[in-house]
C-alpha cells in the first residue's frame, strides 16, 4: 500500500470530533490478577468498533464494565459526557447481545422483545407497534408467537438483536454473537448486522477473537493483549501497519524471521542480518530498533521472480508446499536455515512450479516490518 492511501486511512481512523463513549484509565482486578490496567478508549458516535484479542485478554471484561454488569476498580466511563461509572446497569440504557443470546426461555419471541419496553414502563399502546417494528428489522415477524427453544441459532440471534435494539439503546454491545453459528450463516449475518447497525447509526462495540470477523465488520479495531489495547486503528491500518509483533501475529497471516539489526544503512534503511541473508527495511515505517529483532512480511507482499529494482529484498528458497484456496494459492517455502516457513500468496500459480523447485522471491523494503524481539 502506498503512503497516500495509508494517510487517507489514518484520516478516517482519527476519531471524529465527538468522543461519544469515553473510557478513561479503567482498571479491573480479580483477586490478585489485574485484568485491565489503565485502559483508555474513545468511540465516536455511530462508530462500529471491534475489541479483538485472544481469550483472557480482557475484552469481555471491558464490555461488561461498559454495560455496568461489573464495577471497575478505577477509572471512568462516560457516554455523551455523562459519567456512568457509578450508574447501575439497568439505568444505563446500553443494549447487550450476549454470546449465547441469553433469551428468556419462559417467554415467546414477542415477549422477549417486549421485555425491555415493559421494564422501562413504555406506554402499552406503543409497545405492540415497536415490537413489530423491531421484529421486522430482523425479519422475524412470522415467528413472533414462537417459543425460544423452537428457533434455530441464527433466528435466536436475530431475536437477541431485536430485543436489544427495541429500547433504542445509546450504545450496543455485542459479545461474540456469531460464535455459535456455522460459517456460511455467520458470514451472512455479519454483513446483515453491519448494514442494519449502519442504517440505524447506532454506536456499537463488538467483542470477538475472530480476526476475519473484526476486519469485515469494523470501522476501527482495538487489538487487545493482556489487558491493554495494543493498537487502535482501521482494519487496513491494523493489518498493514501492525503496531506490535503481537498485532502482526494475531491479525492475518505473516512470515516472521528472527535477525539482528545493524546501524542504519544508506538512504534511511536498516539492515537486518538473518539466517537467509541480509534483509533491508524502510526506516520510514519502522522506529529503527537495533539488536535482536523480528522481521515481518505479509504473504501478499511477496512476489515470485527477480526483484525489479533496488527498493526490494530478494532471496532464493525451496518451495515446500502448494496450498490451493480457490481464489488464491499459498506457497510455503522452507529455507534450511529457518525454523518457520515463508508464506507467499499468489492469485494464480505460474506453470511448471512444483515442490522442490528453488525459486527467487522479492518484496518491497517499504513493506518490511521490524519489531524488537520480545
Amino acid at each position, binding site marked *: 500500500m502506498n503512503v497516500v492511501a495509508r494517510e487517507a486511512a489514518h484520516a478516517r481512523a482519527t476519531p471524529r470530533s465527538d468522543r461519544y463513549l469515553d473510557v478513561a484509565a479503567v482498571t479491573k482486578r480479580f483477586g490478585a490478577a489485574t485484568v485491565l490496567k489503565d485502559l483508555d478508549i474513545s468511540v465516536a458516535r455511530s462508530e462500529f468498533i471491534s475489541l479483538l484479542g485472544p481469550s483472557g485478554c480482557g475484552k469481555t471484561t471491558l464490555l461488561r464494565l461498559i454495560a455496568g454488569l461489573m464495577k471497575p476498580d478505577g477509572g471512568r466511563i462516560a457516554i455523551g459526557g455523562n459519567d456512568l461509572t457509578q450508574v447501575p446497569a439497568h439505568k444505563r*440504557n446500553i443494549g447487550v447481545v*450476549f454470546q449465547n443470546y441469553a433469551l428468556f*426461555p419462559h*417467554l415467546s419471541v414477542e415477549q422477549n422483545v417486549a421485555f425491555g419496553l415493559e421494564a422501562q414502563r413504555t406506554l402499552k399502546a406503543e409497545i405492540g407497534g415497536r415490537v413489530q417494528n423491531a421484529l421486522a428489522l430482523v425479519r422475524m415477524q412470522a415467528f413472533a408467537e414462537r417459543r425460544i427453544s423452537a428457533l434455530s441459532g441464527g433466528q435466536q440471534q436475530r431475536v437477541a438483536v431485536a430485543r436489544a435494539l427495541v429500547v433504542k439503546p445509546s450504545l450496543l454491545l455485542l459479545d461474540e454473537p456469531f460464535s455459535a453459528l456455522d460459517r456460511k450463516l455467520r458470514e451472512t449475518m455479519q454483513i446483515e448486522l453491519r448494514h442494519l447497525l449502519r442504517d440505524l447509526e447506532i454506536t456499537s462495540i463488538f467483542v470477538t477473537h475472530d480476526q476475519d470477523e473484526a476486519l469485515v465488520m469494523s470501522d476501527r479495531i482495538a487489538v487487545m493483549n493482556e489487558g491493554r489495547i495494543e493498537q487502535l486503528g482501521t482494519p487496513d491500518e491494523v493489518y498493514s501497519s501492525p503496531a506490535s509483533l503481537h498485532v502482526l501475529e494475531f491479525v492475518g497471516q505473516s512470515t516472521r524471521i528472527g535477525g539482528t539489526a545493524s546501524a542504519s544503512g544508506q538512504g534511511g534503511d536498516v539492515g537486518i542480518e538473518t539466517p537467509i541473508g541480509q534483509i533491508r527495511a524502510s526506516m520510514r515505517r519502522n522506529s529503527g530498533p537495533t539488536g535482536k529483532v523480528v522481521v515481518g512480511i505479509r504473504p501478499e507482499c511477496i512476489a515470485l521472480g527477480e526483484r525489479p529494482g533496488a527498493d526490494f529484498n530478494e532471496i532464493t528458497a525451496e518451495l515446500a508446499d502448494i496450498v490451493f484456496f480457490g481464489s488464491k494459492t499459498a506457497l510455503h517455502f522452507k529455507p534450511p536455515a529457518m525454523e518457520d516457513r515463508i508464506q507467499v500468496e499468489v492469485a494464480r500459480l505460474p506453470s511448471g512450479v512444483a515442490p522442490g523447485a528453488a525459486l527467487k522471491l522479492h518484496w518491497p523494503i517499504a513493506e518490511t516490518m521490524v519489531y524488537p524481539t520480545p
Partner: protein
Amino acid sequence: MTTIGMETQVTAPPRRRLLQLDAPAIMVLPGLVFMVVAFAIPVLILVADSFRDASGLSLAGYRKVLGDPYYIGIIWNSLQLGLITTIGSLLIGYPAAFALSRAPARLQVLLFALIFLPLTVSIIVKTFGLAIMMRRDGILNWLLLNLGFIERPMRLVFTEFALYFGMINVFLPLMILPIYSVMRQLDPRLTDAAASLGAGPVTTFLRVTLPLTMPGVVAGISLVFSISVAAYVTPGLLIGDRFMTMSQVMAKAYLNIRDFNLGASMAVVMLVVAVTIVFTSTYFAEPASRRGRKG
C-alpha cells in the same frame, strides 16, 4: 392407490405380545412390587377399614371426622401446621437457595453441608434439643433476658411458637434442596440481560428469576406441605395435646382407644387433603412457569 394403502395399513401394526418386557419395564419391576406391598396394599386396607366397623359396613368414622366440630378443628390444626411450616420454610429457604447457588464453588460445598447436616440428626434428638433450649432456664430465655427483651423467663415450650420454630427447622432443608437444584441451572446471563434492558432488581426477580425457578418452588412446597401436614413426632414433643393434629388423632385411635374405623377415616381424609393441596399448587404454579411457552 387407496386399496394398496389400506392393505399396508392392515399388515402394518406389528404383532405385540400381551406383556412386552423390554429393559425399562424390567427395571421398574422391583420398585413396583415393593410399592404394591409396602404402600398400595396398606392404603387399600386403610380405605376398607374406614368404611367398616365391628358391625359391618359403616360411615360412622367419616361422620365423626367430618361432622364433629372437635375433629374439624383438628383437621384445621393440621392444615394450619402444614401451611405455616411451608410458608415459613419458603420465606427462609428461597433466599438461602439463591445465595447458595451464587456462592463460590468451595463455599457452596461448605454451606451445602451446613444446611444438610441437620438431616442426618434424628428428628427426636433435634426436637428434644430444641425443647431443652426453650425451657424456662434454657438458653433462649437466658439470651432474651440478658438482651433486655423480656423481664422474666417466658413460657416457650408447648407454645405454637415452639411448634413452628421446630417444624421449620426440621423441614427447611427439604425446601432448599429442590429450589437450589433449579436455581443453579439458571443462566446468570439472563439476569444480566434483564438489567441491560432496563429491568431493576425487583422486576428482574419477578419476571425472570421467580418464573424460571417456579418448578423448584412447587417441588419444595409439595414436599414440605405433604410431609409437615402429617408430622407426628415434632408436634408431639414440642406442643403435645395442646395442639392436636390428624396424625395424633390417628395414633390415639389406633393405639389407645382401638377405634380402627376412626383412625382409618382420619387417615383417608388426611391423604385426600394432602394430595389435593399438592396437585392444586402444582396446577396453579404451572402457568406461571410456562407462560408464553405455548404456540
